[in-house]
């Protein structure tokens, strides 16, 4: 793909600051989550064998944003507000008629598909759901992303590995603390034939962040801290974006959200029309839209970059996994999205189809509320982590399509701490920690959604059964509908959440802050945890520019 060459800034910096962040087993001695008793401290050290038994000595403060985020990840690992589970994989079935590498961010861009045989010119993809409308600013979920991104583009995009690449911008830079500037490419036309102008870019940004411009965009929280944009100069095609403060991940956010729309086209059509038609700048243009059934595209010949390698692309849906696989096996479809573990062998044993799997941006975890018994004890939370046999879950429930994690930030993300390992299974230690926590005999219940994440119910049952093996804890799992769980976790009030629940979190910005801030910071919108030291580390991190861009 051409855009890989245009990547000028490596998304992931070689971990230069990693050494500084070999952080600090002792930091968990925590001064302020309000619940720990002073007697916690000795047990925080000499933990899981991966950390050298160290006195809680003070280490020098990190000097970089990455250093702060890595230290935050270490702290979270030690304080264990979650049962850390795994990183979910995206598993696709693929026909031999095409050549294609799946992307880490769960998005399927048809631009990256090349025909491997004559049958590969016209490519069909089956996913589990269709779009929630074609307005690229009016949604935020993967099935719609996949449908929208074939025709719409942002100023920045990501390549298959997650690195930021300039697309509709030819250049991007920080002018000062509260301003970033994009230079808009000047040889781009929309599918309708109109030329892309800097005004279109500014309008698109404002349409997301300012609710009086058209719609209430669900992406507004993804461009948090962006106040608005204006055309700086029509001559040199620059757009200035004003920020409320230094936003370290502003480019990472723009690389994931903010598709550019044609201002005059948007303004002359109503919402229902915009949700059933497209006028983007992308490599494919809409040729047929049947709501809830099928979206068909054809190659856009006037694309500013190399035209796409395939001539048509069609997306349809089948909510049943076996139906998606059957379509693939019968040659009706070239890509089947979300092949569950039990269907993998059918795809692999069939001539002309294979499995393509890639680690996704989604972490699956069991949150434990820090403010209720017995989870208010860090020892108890660690004990639950020690009691879970992650490897067995990944091997047996997920058929190896998942990788274990010991921190909320995934490998390859900015702020990932390479020195933190997943908790190993250690029943003896778990039992002992439960005794120390003073909650021996606790009865706990894990609440899991049904069918929202790959094998969620099975995973929750395995976790509960493994924790239940402890002689001094009894654990069970309870299933609820996903929307029921959502209505409990999104009220903004920690008391409304179940004490122990399974959730998944996708983070397409590839930056630690977009997971830790909403889920674990004291003022996070979904938080079930609070710790002053963690809040301080995040604040420090957010006051430094990101080394990633």
């Amino acid at each position, binding site marked *: 793909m051409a855009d890989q060459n245009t990547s000028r800034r490596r998304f992931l910096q070689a971990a230069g600051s990693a050494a500084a962040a070999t952080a600090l087993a002792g930091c968990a001695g925590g001064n302020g989550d309000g619940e720990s008793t002073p007697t916690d401290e000795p047990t925080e050290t000499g933990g899981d064998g991966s950390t050298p038994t160290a006195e809680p000595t003070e280490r020098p403060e990190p000097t970089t944003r990455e250093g702060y985020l890595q230290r935050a990840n270490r702290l979270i690992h030690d304080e264990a507000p979650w049962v850390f589970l795994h990183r979910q994989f995206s598993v696709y079935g693929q026909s031999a008629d095409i050549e294609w590498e799946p992307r880490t961010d769960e998005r399927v861009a048809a631009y990256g598909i090349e025909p491997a045989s004559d049958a590969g010119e016209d490519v069909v993809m089956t996913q589990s759901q269709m779009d929630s409308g074609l307005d690229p600013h009016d949604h935020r979920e993967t099935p719609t992303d996949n449908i929208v991104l074939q025709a719409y583009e942002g100023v920045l995009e990501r390549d298959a590995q997650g690195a930021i690449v300039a697309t509709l911008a030819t250049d991007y830079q920080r002018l000062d603390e509260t301003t970033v500037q994009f230079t808009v490419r000047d040889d781009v036309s929309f599918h309708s034939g109109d030329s892309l102008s800097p005004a279109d870019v500014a309008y698109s940004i404002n349409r997301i962040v300012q609710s009086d411009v058209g719609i209430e965009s669900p992406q507004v*929280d993804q461009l948090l801290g962006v106040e608005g944009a204006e055309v700086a100069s029509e001559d040199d095609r620059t757009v200035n974006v004003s920020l409320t403060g230094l936003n370290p991940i502003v480019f990472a956010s723009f690389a994931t959200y903010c598709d550019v729309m044609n201002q005059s086209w948007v303004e002359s059509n109503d919402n*229902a029309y915009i949700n059933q038609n497209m006028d983007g700048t992308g490599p494919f243009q809409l040729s047929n839209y049947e*709501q*809830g059934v099928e979206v068909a595209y054809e190659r856009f010949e006037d694309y500013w970059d190399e035209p796409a390698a395939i001539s048509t692309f069609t997306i349809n849906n089948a909510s049943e996994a076996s139906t998606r696989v059957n379509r693939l096996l019968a040659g*009706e479809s070239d890509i089947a999205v979300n092949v569950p573990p039990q269907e993998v062998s059918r795809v692999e044993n069939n001539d002309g189809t294979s499995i393509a799997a890639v680690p996704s941006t989604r972490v699956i975890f069991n949150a434990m509320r820090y403010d209720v018994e017995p989870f208010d004890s860090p020892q108890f939370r660690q004990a639950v982590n020690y009691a879970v046999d992650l490897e067995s879950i990944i091997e047996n429930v997920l058929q190896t399509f998942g990788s274990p994690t010991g921190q909320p930030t995934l490998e390859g993300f900015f702020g990932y701490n390479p020195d933190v390992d997943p908790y190993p299974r250690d029943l003896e230690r778990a039992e002992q920690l439960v005794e120390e926590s003073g909650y021996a005999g606790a009865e706990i219940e894990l609440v899991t959604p049904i069918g929202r994440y790959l094998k969620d119910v099975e995973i929750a049952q395995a976790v509960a059964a493994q924790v239940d093996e402890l002689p001094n804890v009894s654990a069970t799992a309870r299933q609820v*509908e996903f*929307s029921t769980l959502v209505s409990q976790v*999104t009220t903004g009030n920690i008391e409304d959440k179940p004490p122990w629940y399974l959730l998944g979190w996708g983070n397409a910005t590839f930056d630690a802050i977009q997971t830790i801030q909403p889920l674990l910071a004291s003022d*996070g919108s*979904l938080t079930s945890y609070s710790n002053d030291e963690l809040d301080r580390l995040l604040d420090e991190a957010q006051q430094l520019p990101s080394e990633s861009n």
Partner: protein
Amino acid sequence: MGYGRFLLKRGVQGVGVVWGVVTVVFILRFITPGSPIDTVAPLDASQETRQRIAAELGLDQPLYVQYLDYIVELLQGNMGYSYISSIPASVQVFQKLPATLELAVAASIVAVVLSIPLGVISATRRHQPADYAATSFSLLGISTPNFWLGIMLVLVFAVELNVFPTSGRAYGFGEALAAITGPQPFVPVVTAWLASLVLPAITLGTYFTALITRLVRSGMLDELSEGYVRATRAKGLPETLVRYKHVLRNTLVPVVTVLGLQLGTLIGGAVITEAVFAWPGLGSEIIRAINARDWPILQGSLIVIGCGFVLLNIAVDALYAYLDPRVVAE
């Protein structure tokens, strides 16, 4: 009471039923966990964003205001707009209705074509191998789960033998009809239309085939023991004439009633079959709307289905009243 007044009364009752459906669905909002905002807004949306979305969808109004607004709009022919896609609910619902109707009718045809001969054979060869075969088939048909049958049919006839497409709906009845004059070649379009319809129709129709086979069998056995049958036989009428002209005809009266009402059940009950075959019908739409708490779509779908039921019932009643004037007199 005249025939016209009778129909009018039924019509007014029907409107009452539809109004009841609308109201019940509205009350469901109270007792259903999860709010539409949870599915419209991202998980980490701020409370401020949530409130703005609620205001945009009109969900911040008291429920009775929302209810009255909805009824007023509905009377003007406006079902509201999908919370998720902003597309008018009427467009979304009526786009999906033909596929489901088509499937229900096709399944009914499968059921009629198979069940009546099976029932007749079974009744006339009572306690013979053919009877046992037919009864076993109907037992199997009633106890086989729909989704399992569907998946098995797909595996055998689509994936292994490659005779039918695995799923989806290549063309609709309307497109097939249009192909007679239209630019698209007639034969391939009709073939593709029928091919995609066969497996789902068999899957959905099997249960009803089994049900009606039993109905025909027992009905026919009852009739065969009636006095008039002995009389016709005594008159020397050939046995085939006795069976098919007299007995079967009388048996079919309740069968037609059941079929008429089952058509309504098929429309509502096609959900699982639609999922297995990725059939773009109203059933899948309802499931999607329930999961997304997309109330305008859900209400629109249920109103349409409710109207369908009411119309079928009125039609059956009207037919009865026409055939048997005593019904009107009551």
